[in-house]
């Protein structure tokens, strides 16, 4: 499925393709099984080694990989009885955020996630995963519904950021994001947020005020894109590589800084190489996070979320 290969991931992608070929051949030829097993071990080893040396900007590129699984890819794999709910009841339906009801692990949940498109046409429809205020107002509507019906909330974060447009400003992009943060802060239900790709600034955080925040191994989360940061600091958007290093936006950095609670590892070569395996891992991590929150009642959940964010920051007092 690797139709798009970044230069630095080429050795791994080639090995993965050989594994696939051998898998197909081994179906009719059982004697190939040992060779296939050995090749799988080799591929995993090469992938681990290569991915251990990736620079922050390479991880950013992978977090934006065109083949990466998006919110609906995960929903399709571990959510039953999915029913999408549309519209903000005020102005429009925003397809860069999907929202709805589904069953996760046997219980009904509310799901809200950014949604990028595949290919140009789909991406135009999804606005490249950049929501307008209507997307956030739909999210708020669903968060409030979850609170009313006592349903846990699962969010999936994957956006370059909220859309910077004239209409977005006219219709209150700032207010919509702030209000979404507030709605999440007060919801009396468990909330699990998963950064599955790009966590772009306030547009990402608007879906990120959770009791537990998970990040996929190659997910990134940042106050500003490396390109934007470089443009401001050095008036030179091409220095994104340096900016990516300064911003400390990789999953390991996020864990160290206390911004995320756990890293969900990805299959060899990254989630984009194996959507099923990536979904299985994320599903298990969300299940675990929900189980941890099971003893807490509504008020305790709000307190837990407050304390979680209350302690983030670095300062001295004197």
């Amino acid at each position, binding site marked *: 499925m690797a139709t798009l290969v970044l230069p630095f991931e080429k050795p791994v992608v080639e090995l993965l393709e050989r594994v696939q070929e051998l898998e197909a051949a081994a179906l009719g030829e059982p004697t190939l099984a040992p060779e296939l097993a050995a090749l799988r071990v080799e591929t995993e080893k090469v992938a681990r080694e290569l991915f251990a040396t990736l620079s922050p900007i390479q991880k950013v590129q992978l977090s934006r990989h065109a083949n990466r699984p998006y919110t609906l890819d995960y929903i399709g794999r571990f959510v039953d009885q999915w029913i999408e709910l549309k519209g903000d009841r005020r102005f429009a339906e925003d397809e860069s955020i999907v929202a709805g009801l589904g069953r996760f692990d046997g219980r009904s949940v509310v799901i809200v996630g950014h949604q990028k498109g595949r290919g140009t046409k789909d991406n135009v429809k999804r606005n490249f995963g950049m929501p307008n205020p209507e997307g956030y107002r739909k999210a708020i509507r669903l968060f409030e519904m979850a609170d009313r019906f006592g349903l846990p909330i699962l969010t999936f974060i994957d956006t370059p950021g*909220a*859309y*910077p*447009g*004239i209409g*977005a*400003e*006219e*219709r*209150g*992009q*700032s*207010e919509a*994001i*702030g*209000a979404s*943060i*507030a709605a999440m*802060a*007060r919801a009396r239900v468990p909330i699990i947020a998963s950064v599955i790709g790009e966590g772009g*600034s*306030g547009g990402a*955080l*608007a879906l*990120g*005020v959770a009791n537990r925040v998970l990040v996929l191994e190659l997910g990134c*989360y*940042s*106050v*500003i894109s490396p390109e*934007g*940061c470089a443009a*401001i*600091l*050095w008036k030179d958007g091409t220095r994104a590589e340096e900016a990516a290093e*300064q*911003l*400390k*936006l990789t999953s390991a*950095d*996020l864990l160290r*800084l206390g*911004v995320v609670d756990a890293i969900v590892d990805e299959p060899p070569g990254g989630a984009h190489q194996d959507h099923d395996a990536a979904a299985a891992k994320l599903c298990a991590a969300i299940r675990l996070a929900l189980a941890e929150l099971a003893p807490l009642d509504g008020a305790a959940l709000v307190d837990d*979320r*407050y304390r979680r*964010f*209350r302690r*983030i*920051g*670095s*300062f*001295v*007092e*004197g």
Partner: protein
Amino acid sequence: MAWPDKTPPDANEKRTLGKGVFRKCDGCGVTIPADDMVRNFEVCPRCEQHHKLGSEGWQLLLCDDGILDEWDEGLAPTDPLGFSDGRPYLERIQTSQKKSGVREGIQVGRAHLEGRPFAYGCFNFGFMGGSMGSVVGEKITRLFERGAAERLPVVLLQASGGARMQEGILSLMQMAKSVAALERFRATRLPFVSCLLHPTTGGVAASFAFLGDVNVAESKALIGFAGPRVIESTIRQKLPRGFQRAEFLLEHGMVDMVCSRLEMKSRIAVVLGHLCA
């Protein structure tokens, strides 16, 4: 090093004096006595152009007798990311402290407004563009917490370019922290009056700034989520005249009122009179 002593002894004094006596208005271009400008809180008496007003000016404008019992003065930033854009972050902090004369991007405390005690916060735009890092986020969070504990309404004056890049993701998280604190404050049924000054953009706009029970915008202030240049480069169009100005926000229903700096205190007093039990 020996300098040829050509400078007459009172030249410096004269220069300060010369600069101090008259000021040219950025709006109408008329030369105005500097004292008149200061007394008028940097609002031109002829054309009402609002010039930059520092945090000490705002304190004088909003707090009775200009008196503020400051809270959390001692909070100081660290460098959690080891950030450098060529110059280390902490060095930039020091430079900004010297230049602006304040320690961080916000000042908070307890004061009185037309006799009524209230919790006051005011961004220092002169300090790294009023950007919100950990210290600003913490001080706002404590402002709401302490406001709730002491049963005080909160009036927050914003002037900020947004989240502080140099503290990366930790700055972004201050948005969630402060808004969560505001939500708790709200539950105590005390009013929050949000004042949007020039400029209020980015992460500060997109967190608590629009969540006031009442939102007051300063005349002609630039207020928005994305900066005008970012929008222009995204949509490749010229922006309409007056876009993202306070009056534009009023027209689009995002703020309750736009007013001159000089009317702000009396308007807020009326609002608090209605909302405070």
